[in-house]
C-alpha cells in the first residue's frame, strides 16, 4: 500500500514538473525567438525560423536606432519619467490630505478621486480628443503627460492612501508638538515612512507609461512626439520588408521593462497585490 502510494506520488511529481517546465518553455521561447531574430538577416529569417543567427552583428539594432527608434526612445523616457514623478507626487499629496488632514466633504472628495478608478480611457476618448484640440495640446508631449497622470492618479492615490491610513497618528502629533508645519510633516516624516509603497507605485507607473498604446496612438502622429509602442507599429509599416530591423526595435522596447521587472520584482508584486487584494 505504502509502496503504491509512493509510485503514484512519483508519477504525479514527474507530471507536475513536466507541465510546469513545459509552460515555462512556451512562455520563454517566443521571447528568445524575438531576441535572436534581431541578429538575423532577412534571408535567414525566411529560411528556418528555428535556426540560430549565422553571424551576430548589431547592424539591425543600428539600423533600427537610426530609423527613428532613438527618437521614440527619447520620447518614451521623457513621458515615463515626467508622468511618474507627477502621478506619484500628486497622489501622495492627495493621500496625505485624505488621511491626515481634516478637509470639508472629506468622504465625497475621497469617493470622487478614487471613483476615477472605475472609468476606462476608451470611454472618454472622443471628448478628450476634442478637448485637447481646443486647448492646442493635440499631438504634443503635454497631451500624453497630462493623460498618463490624470488617468493614473486614482489608482496610485488608492494604493498610497491605503498605506498611509495604517501609519500611527502619534507621528503627526509629535511633529506638531515640535512645531513642524504640515508641509514639513508630509515631506520629512510621512513620505519617507511610505517609501515601500512609493517604490511600488513608481514601478507600476513606469510599466504603465512605457507600455501604453491607446492614448499614444490617438493623441500623437508626428515622429517627434511618438512613444516606442506607437513608433514600433510605424517602423513596421514603413520598413515592413526589413523584418529583422523591426525585431531589433521590439527588443529595444522590451529590454528596459524586463530589466525593471527582474530587479524590482518584489515591489511590483507588492503594488499589484495591494491594488487588487486590498
Amino acid at each position: 500500500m505504502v509502496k503504491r502510494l509512493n509510485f503514484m506520488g512519483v508519477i504525479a511529481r514527474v507530471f507536475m514538473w513536466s507541465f510546469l517546465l513545459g509552460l515555462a518553455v512556451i512562455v520563454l521561447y517566443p521571447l528568445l525567438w524575438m531576441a535572436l531574430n534581431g541578429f538575423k538577416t532577412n534571408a535567414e529569417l525566411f529560411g528556418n525560423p528555428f535556426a540560430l543567427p549565422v553571424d551576430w552583428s548589431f547592424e539591425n539594432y543600428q539600423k533600427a536606432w537610426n530609423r527613428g527608434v532613438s527618437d521614440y526612445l527619447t520620447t518614451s523616457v521623457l513621458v515615463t519619467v515626467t508622468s511618474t514623478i507627477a502621478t506619484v507626487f500628486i497622489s501622495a499629496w492627495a493621500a496625505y490630505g485624505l488621511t491626515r488632514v481634516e478637509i470639508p466633504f472629506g468622504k465625497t472628495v475621497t469617493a470622487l478621486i478614487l471613483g476615477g478608478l472605475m472609468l476606462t480611457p476608451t470611454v472618454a476618448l472622443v471628448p478628450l480628443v476634442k478637448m485637447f484640440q481646443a486647448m492646442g495640446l493635440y499631438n504634443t508631449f503635454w497631451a500624453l503627460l497630462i493623460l498618463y497622470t490624470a488617468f493614473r492618479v486614482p489608482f496610485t492615490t488608492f494604493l498610497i492612501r491605503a498605506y498611509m491610513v495604517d501609519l500611527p497618528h502619534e507621528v503627526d502629533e509629535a511633529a506638531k508638538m515640535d512645531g513642524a508645519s504640515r508641509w514639513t510633516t508630509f515631506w520629512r516624516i510621512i513620505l519617507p515612512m511610505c517609501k515601500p509603497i512609493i517604490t511600488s507605485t513608481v514601478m507600476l507607473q513606469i510599466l504603465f507609461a512605457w507600455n501604453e498604446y491607446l492614448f499614444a496612438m490617438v493623441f500623437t502622429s508626428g515622429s517627434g512626439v511618438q512613444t516606442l509602442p506607437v513608433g514600433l507599429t510605424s517602423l513596421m509599416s514603413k520598413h515592413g520588408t526589413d523584418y529583422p530591423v523591426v525585431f531589433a526595435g521590439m527588443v529595444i522596447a522590451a529590454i528596459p521593462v524586463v530589466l525593471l521587472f527582474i530587479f524590482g520584482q518584489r515591489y511590483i508584486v507588492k503594488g499589484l497585490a495591494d491594488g487588487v487584494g486590498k
Partner: protein
Amino acid sequence: MRAVFQRALGLAWVIPALALVGVFVYLPLVQNFGFSALEWDIYSGEQEFVGLKNYTKLLDDPIFWTSFGNNLLYAVISIVFQVFGALLLAALIESISSDRWRRNLRAIYFLPSAISLTVAGLLFYFIYEPNLGPLNHALKAVGLGEFTQAWLGQESTAMSAIIAMSQWQGFGYSTLLFAVAIQRIPSEIYGAAALDGTGPIRRFFHVTLPLVREMTGLMMMVTISGAFQVFNEVMVMTSGGPNNSTQVLGTWLYRSGFVRNNFGYAAAIATVLFVITLGIALAQMWVTRRRRVEW
C-alpha cells in the same frame, strides 16, 4: 471663522488630484453622453442633434454585435485561463518546496506581462505569419502540415489566434496575484490539513479554494472588465480585420470615430462600454464590501 478657514485650507492637499480627475476623466465622460446624441462630421464641423438615433443605429449594426460577441468570447476564455487556470497553477507552484523554484517560475510566467502589448502583438503577428512564422513550421515538422494556415488572415481563426496570444501575455499576471493570495493563508491551516492526512487535491478544494474565494471573485471582475476594454492586441495584429471578424468594441469605436469620421456614433459605442464597465465595477465593490463585513 478661523477654524472654517483652516479646514478649507485642507482642500489644498486634494485640489491637484481633484482638478486632474475632474477635468480629464469626469468631464469627458459627461461630454460623451452629449456627443452621442449628435451626428458630427469632424472635417466640415457640421453638427446635428439626432437624439437617440446613434443608439438605434447601433442595435442594427451587425459589426457592433460581432464586436460585442468577440468581447464576450474574450471574457469567457480569459476567465478559464486567467482566473481558474491561473488559480490552479498558483496552487501548484506554491506547493513546491524549493523557495528558489517557486520564485523563478512565478517570475518566468510573469515576464510576458512586463513587455508591452504592442511588442507582444507584433511578436505573435510574426509567429502566426504563414511563411516565416514558427507556428506553421512547427506543425510541418511534427507531421501536421495540413493544419498550416494564415492564422490572422482568415475570419475563422483570426479571433482565436488573438485571444490565444492574449492568454500567453496575461496568465502570469493573475498567477502571481493568486500566488500572493495563497501565501497569505496562515500556514497553520495547511499544517492542520496535513495532520488530518488530506491529500493535495482535497487540500486544494477544501482549504485553498474557499480561502482565496474573495480574490477569485475580484479577479473575475478585473478579467471581465479587461476583456471589454481590449484594444491594443487587436489593433496591432489585425486592426479588426479580416472583414471585421476581429473587431471588438474598443477598435470599432476607434474606427467609427477616427477612421470613418462619425464621432457621434463612436460616442454611442463609448456609452455602451461605460455602462458595461461601470456595472462590473459596482459588482466588484459589492464583492469587496461583503468581504469586509465577513472579517
